[in-house]
């Protein structure tokens, strides 16, 4: 007798990096599983991290779109846009959307990304031109208001604020970066690297106000904004961009056992404590591949990897995919600063090596713990940067000679690493 196996229906919440990578992975592993992807936002899926480049005009709107609807249909993926999940009924295994539509699932992937923090003190100042840079809607608004010669203030000194400032620099715009700390990107760059980046920012006409905070923002008649700073100076700007950090987008899970403090807790296969429900991307709490700490990295690269792993696991594989490597790149035309792993570790046992090359403003910082590279910063020349992530992620143990050789030749890892004997070996063999 032939038994007909019921096809499991997979539901994916979120059409970002993690959600779509998962859909692709499920498609390759299991071509006929029904897959539905829900996006909270209207329109086609797009790449969030490409928004700054759309604003700066480096690529057209079309360029940030990650899928055509036709393509999704060809893949056999049902796509529901503009109807975010509002709640989840775990017992009856279904998700309730804002429109009250109910979607049943056998397996569920939560990949709803993060949401930017909105400081309470700004309550009441919501107006066009006071904005995050998070969604396509935000980006459209920013692009509309940031006309030639306009003035802009960006609040925050993290990654997104930096991207926003950089995207808006030029075209006669006055761009202020308001930064509470004494330097920018302090979580990923050290003082030396930040200084080089700073110099380059300055050349691009971005004014960086350090040790400064915002006291008050008022919307003036005519739509401009007055920003009062803690040194009681004032800025009058057309556009005020808030980028003070993000948190996992799990408000709709409130009251379920899924919502954790940091995000959604998952096991090594990205499955939550409820069987059949997975999480990936910015919402998932995963392990740092260097320290083992539980973190939400909020990065594109980790979202793609986790999405793929979760997708494969949902399609029946059992693949460990909860190890995240921190990796940030900031770039200006022809010049970039890359931070990988934990270059700023406070660990007392770590050894730090720094190298500077003035002629092309290149700088490198390597951090070793015992015989392993655990972090690196690469500023300027970076053709060999691709070798570092592997060394760090795979926890490659170097011999004394190898380590010495690396430090003797800090600007050309490629030649060196390729002529070194075996550095890596798979440990989990199948």
């Amino acid at each position, binding site marked *: 007798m032939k038994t007909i196996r019921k096809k499991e229906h997979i539901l994916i919440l979120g059409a970002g990096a993690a959600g779509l990578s998962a859909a692709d992975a499920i498609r390759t592993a299991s071509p006929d599983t029904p897959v539905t992807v829900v996006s909270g936002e209207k329109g086609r899926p797009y790449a969030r991290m490409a928004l700054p480049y759309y604003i700066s005009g480096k690529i057209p709107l079309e360029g940030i779109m990650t899928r055509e609807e036709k393509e999704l249909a060809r893949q056999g993926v049902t796509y529901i846009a503009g109807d975010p999940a509002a709640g989840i009924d775990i017992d009856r295994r279904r998700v309730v959307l804002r429109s009250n539509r109910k979607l049943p699932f056998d397996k569920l992937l939560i990949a709803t990304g993060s949401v930017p923090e909105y400081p309470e003190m700004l309550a009441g100042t919501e107006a066009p031109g006071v904005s995050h840079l998070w969604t396509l809607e935000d980006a459209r608004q920013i692009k509309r208001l940031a006309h030639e010669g306009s003035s802009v203030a960006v609040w925050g000194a993290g990654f997104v604020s930096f991207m926003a400032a950089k995207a808006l620099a030029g075209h006669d715009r006055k761009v202020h970066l308001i930064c509470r700390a004494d330097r920018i990107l302090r979580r990923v760059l050290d003082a030396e690297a930040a200084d080089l980046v700073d110099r380059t920012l300055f050349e691009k006409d971005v004014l960086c106000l350090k040790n400064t905070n915002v006291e008050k923002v008022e919307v003036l008649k005519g739509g401009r904004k007055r920003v009062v700073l803690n040194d009681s100076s004032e800025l009058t700007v057309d556009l005020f961009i808030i980028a003070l950090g993000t948190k996992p987008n799990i408000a709709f899970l409130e009251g379920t056992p899924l919502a954790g403090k940091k995000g959604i807790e998952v096991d090594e296969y990205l499955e939550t404590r409820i069987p059949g429900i997975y999480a990936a991307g910015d919402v998932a709490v995963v392990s740092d591949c260097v320290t083992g700490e539980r973190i939400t990295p909020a990065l594109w690269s980790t979202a793609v990897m986790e999405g793929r792993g979760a997708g494969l696991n949902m399609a029946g594989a059992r693949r460990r995919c909860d190890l995240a490597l921190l990796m940030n790149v900031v770039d200006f035309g022809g010049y970039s600063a890359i931070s990988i792993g934990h270059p700023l570790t406070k660990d007392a046992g770590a050894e730090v090596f720094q190298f500077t090359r003035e002629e092309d403003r290149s700088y490198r910082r390597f951090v070793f713990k015992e015989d392993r590279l655990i972090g690196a910063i690469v500023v300027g020349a970076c053709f060999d940067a691709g070798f570092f992530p592997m060394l760090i992620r795979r926890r490659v143990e170097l011999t004394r000679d190898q380590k010495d050789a690396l430090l003797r030749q800090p600007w050309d890892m490629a030649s060196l690493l390729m002529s070194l004997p075996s550095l890596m070996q798979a440990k*989990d063999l199948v």
Partner: protein
Amino acid sequence: MAGERVLYFDTKRCVGCHACETACKIENGISPGPKWIEVVQQVVPREDDGWTIEFMPLNCRHCTNAGCITACPAGAIGKRGDGVVLVNRALCIGCGECLQGCPFGAPQFGPGGLMEKCTLCAHRPAGSPTACEQLCPVGAIRSGTPQEMSLHKRSSYLITAIALSASQGR
């Protein structure tokens, strides 16, 4: 290393029937194209100025200093405690560098495009013979540790020697 298993081939016995290739394909469900073991033939001159054909089954040698492991940029290949060199296909990205690093051309790439190769039938219970060994009609393939192989060679030498002296009536 001492306890590592290898495949041992007796080229004098191999008749080039390719049964091992078939056995391997069936055992491991290999798609068309890749050959984890392949019988390669070579024309060699004989002492009497004629020529003869020698056959040699070639699989992965599960090297101690494996070139494939050194070459793999993804760290997808490793050596198990019992010496078997295996690839973790979840880590493999299909770049083909292992094939470049292997002196024997052992790594194979099928339609899926990821590396696959002889596993010394690692899925069978420890100590069982490999599929190719089992199916070889003339006993040209044997698996075992180098010690076992040495013992095997020594004892087969003894058998030949005894048979020889018996046939010569001594």
